């Protein structure tokens, strides 16, 4: 995933709100799926750099990785699909039905008045 651009996009969305509410951001929660994964370390690093000297400086960024639910076409078992260790946990089959992968979302932010 492209963490710097994601960090910039999150920052712009939050900055709009801190300006509107004359507040500073203390915490934000984002979520991503399995086929658009985020590297937490890289995103945090990029966000901290961008946020320096702004009302977002020091903000805690929570990153949720939403599992991708799959069901095995062979044995029917439901499981959380791991892109890097594919295979049904029960029968090792490689044929699955997937639920839709989670989009990259800015879910929630918490502001504190200045």
């Amino acid at each position, binding site marked *: 995933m492209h963490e710097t651009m994601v960090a910039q996009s999150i920052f712009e969305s939050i900055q709009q709100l801190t300006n509107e509410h004359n507040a500073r951001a203390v915490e934000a929660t984002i979520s991503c799926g399995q086929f658009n994964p985020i590297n937490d370390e890289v995103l945090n690093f990029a966000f901290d750099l961008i946020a320096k000297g702004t009302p977002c400086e020091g903000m805690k960024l929570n990153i949720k990785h939403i599992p991708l639910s799959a069901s095995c076409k062979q044995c029917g078992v439901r499981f959380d699909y791991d892109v890097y260790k594919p295979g049904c946990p029960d029968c090792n089959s490689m044929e699955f039905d997937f639920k839709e992968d989670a989009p990259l*979302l800015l879910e929630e932010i*918490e502001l504190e008045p200045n």
Partner: protein
Amino acid sequence: MKISLNKKILDKNEECAMQNSEFFADNDILCLNVISSPGSGKTTILSQTIRDLTGEIKIAVIEGDIRTDIDAKKIRAAGASAVQIETKGSCHLSAQQVTGALMAIPAAGMDVIFIENVGNLVCPSDFVLGEDLRVVVLSVPEGDDKPIKYPGTFAKADVILINKIDLIDYIDFSLERVIADIRVVNDKAEILQLSATTGEGMENWYNWLRSKITQ
């Protein structure tokens, strides 16, 4: 104060992609976003396609590279309009760059516009450009482990072209493994084997293209 947003993070790119997509729909253009590693043969496939389908399908190409207009020149030499986007460091094209590029070619009169993305199997897959469909190219010399290493890109493909198939006897490359690994993440994409250099399998690609234009 907590504010619930549930806002798409790359929404600016997506809004712009939506406008591109409307432009393609309004003008009856099929837009294909072509993604692969550097050196897989994207430009060679497109150049050969332009030569072979001259007079049948009107094609223009938007080329994305970090530097140089080498690829756009090759496309023009093959007989099609091309515009080069030099990203100057960025590893993928954005929808906004495509909007700008569309003004530099006679886009409205085309049947097909190919967007040849920056050679990269990671980042381009996350940025929609407004395309109708995605073409992913994997060439034999890259090795048969690419689909399992870069599942995100292969998961979102509509057609996967296995290029340089004429080299398969010289390289340790298992077609069975590649197809099985693609099927783990993508059970719908058509998988076509071809060689843009020898012409082997190109007719299957053209037929796929024709079928999508008429849809």
